[in-house]
């Protein structure tokens, strides 16, 4: 009787989801969509490039001086060309291209900019940026790049203000003699070197730097075949969205109370344990279905393969049970439908972020990294699946799967008991 009753309840709920699949489908589709966007913007493309087309930007040089020349030289470097397609235009032509949506932005170097900069004038110099309003991301990226350039120019001007003026006078002096040139040049060089010496402690060692890794062709081929930024991001996203799906299913208990169907059930059956147990089973089943779609779908959509499918599948099953228990526990602790919805969303986001769904746990503050992250089921799941996917075959996945399973079962049992007790005492708010 109990088994057939649970089956009847389960069949009804699955039918309801089939009739109105929107909420569950959104939870499944959202991580695929987010990973696609993030992957295409920041991931590697097939040709090893950035994965996005170079940003088209025009430079209007109304100054005719050294700044535009400097930018032209920078733009011709391969690193720059990978991200930006810089062309020189006059203002009218550039604006017309923006109107036709052929440019993402235009940088205008105003007349007299280079001279004023080198002379160290007190008035603020302005570089003009015209953004294409029809585009959103690319103009913002140009603005970021320009801000970096302006910061660099400001730093240079503040540190070497007097030197720049001296160098300008020297270069523009038409009455130079060989003797005077040598003396002036020596003085300018001495001053500039002194300023560099003064700045040494700030510049060396640098606060931020990078080192190019020299790699063999074999090493590069090996990494390209195993590492996928899509897979790396997706594991974190899946960890979070499986909790979201579980949460949506657990909230159904509150909806049943609101629809009075829970009350009607109670007019036919003594106790509600079967009803609560069925919701837990439903949550696990739907989370597993969602996980299967997420994990298989992501591999198909983004063209990577799971390195160790069986251990990953087992961990996903254990994590689904853990997710069901965790979200049920938060839901029942909340006591009211609206409070449960709000609490669960916040807590799930917290579990995801602190568990490493969005960043490497190494990047988190040390207090969180050492005292919180290691105890979060999201971290157990995300870490072990990433380890399995990206190289550490010897990871103790079985013990982590067991830990997820036991935690999940304990939470499911405890939440069911609490739900049941709450219902027996007069229902859910």
């Amino acid at each position, binding site marked *: *009787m109990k088994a*057939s*009753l649970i089956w*009847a*309840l389960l069949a*009804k709920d699955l*039918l*309801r989801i089939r*009739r*109105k699949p929107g909420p569950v489908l959104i939870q499944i589709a959202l991580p695929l969509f987010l990973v696609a966007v993030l992957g295409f913007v920041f991931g590697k493309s097939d040709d090893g490039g950035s994965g996005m087309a170079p940003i088209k930007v025009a430079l209007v040089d109304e100054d005719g001086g050294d700044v535009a020349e400097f930018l032209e030289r920078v733009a011709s470097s391969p690193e720059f060309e990978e991200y930006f397609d810089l062309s020189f235009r006059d203002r009218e032509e550039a604006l017309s291209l923006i109107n036709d949506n052929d440019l993402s932005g235009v940088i205008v170097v105003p007349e007299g900019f280079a001279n004023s900069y080198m002379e160290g004038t007190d008035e603020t110099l302005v570089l003009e940026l015209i953004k294409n309003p029809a585009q959103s991301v690319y103009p913002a990226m140009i603005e970021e790049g320009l801000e970096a350039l302006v910061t660099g120019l400001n730093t240079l001007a503040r540190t070497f203000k007097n030197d720049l003026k001296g160098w300008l006078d020297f270069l523009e002096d038409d009455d130079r003699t060989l003797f005077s040139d040598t003396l002036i040049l020596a003085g300018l060089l001495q001053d500039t070197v002194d300023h560099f010496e003064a700045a040494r402690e700030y510049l060396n060692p640098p606060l931020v730097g990078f080192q190019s890794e020299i790699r063999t062709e074999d090493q590069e081929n090996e990494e390209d075949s195993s590492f996928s930024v899509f897979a790396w991001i997706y594991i974190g996203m899946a960890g979070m969205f499986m909790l979201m799906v579980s949460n949506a299913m657990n909230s159904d208990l509150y909806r049943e109370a609101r*629809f*009075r*169907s829970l*009350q*009607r*059930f*109670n*007019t*036919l*059956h*003594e106790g509600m344990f079967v009803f609560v147990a069925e919701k837990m089973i439903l949550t696990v089943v739907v989370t597993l279905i969602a996980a299967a779609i997420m994990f298989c779908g992501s591999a198909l959509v983004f063209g990577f393969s799971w390195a160790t499918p069986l251990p990953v599948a087992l961990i996903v099953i254990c994590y689904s049970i853990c997710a069901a228990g965790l979200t049920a526990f938060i839901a029942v602790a909340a006591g009211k439908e609206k409070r449960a919805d709000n609490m669960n969303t916040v807590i799930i986001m917290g579990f995801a972020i602190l568990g490493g769904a969005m960043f490497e746990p190494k990047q988190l503050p040390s207090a969180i990294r050492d005292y919180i992250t290691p105890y979060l089921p999201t971290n157990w799941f995300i870490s072990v699946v990433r380890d399995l996917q990206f190289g550490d075959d010897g990871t103790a996945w079985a013990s982590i799967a067991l830990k997820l399973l036991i935690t999940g079962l304990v939470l499911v049992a405890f939440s069911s008991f609490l739900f049941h007790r709450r219902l027996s005492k007069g229902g859910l708010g």
Partner: protein
Amino acid sequence: MSLLEIDGLSKRFGELIAVDDVSFEVKPGEIYGLLGPNGAGKTTTISVACGLLKPNRGSVRVEGRDFWSDPQQSRQAMGVVPQELALYEDLNGRENLEFWGKVAGLKSNEAKERATDLLEALTLSDRAKDPVSKYSGGMKRRINLGCALMHRPKLILLDEPTVGIDPQARANILAFIKALVDDGVGILYTTHYLEEAESLCDRIGIIDHGKILAEGTLAELQERLGQDQIFVLDGFFENADPLAWDGFDASFRVIQKLDTQLIVATRGERDPADCLKQLLALPAQIDNVMLKRPSLNDAFLQLTGRDLRE
């Protein structure tokens, strides 16, 4: 043997006494009506009767045995139709019926057959495959009723099953309920519609503030008002004191006094023409006098001092 016996039932929520020493019984083939305004204690009484709430005092017996001695069997003996719709709007009418049938213990094929019969009886066969969300209010009410009947209960508890629907839909539901009684089913029916209680119920309990004030057949309740004569006087009675009028108290009993209306019942058997003559001679401005048979509302008025329709 009674299908349902409620004896000395009391239920309180903190300081509020929702049901106070209520007793009545429902026999096979009988519709027992609990009539009272909103908040009178009707739904609480039904909730205790079907085991959703436990009473603070008193007993509930189903088919002769105490409800709580075997709550599962007691629940299986009854079908409860809640006042608020308890349906899955994403599912269609047939799916709702079959689901609740299975929850009540029917096998899949039994549930299918029973659902077909009920859809026919409730005149919903042609809309059986439409989602409930697309049903009218009356159709939802009928499916809500059908869900409680899937397991053929001997006792049906109906908590205001016609609230908020049009007269045509209400008439359909009432006709369906009357037909159920012919099969020997006992029904506890709560309502605040006088007409429903008058036309449907074999016996009626008038309930207010958690207490049953009077109980009996419609005729018995009407008799409480005296010899079948009620006079409704329209006029101006704002400052009037009927008890001070000469000879009035010996001939009439005031049922209700408003600023513009006075309702009185005669004392003893009297000639209506004499009564009318006496009323028109009263020292008050009277614009109109109407003679009528006492209704359930008049009984309610007399018992509670207020109109059930207020």
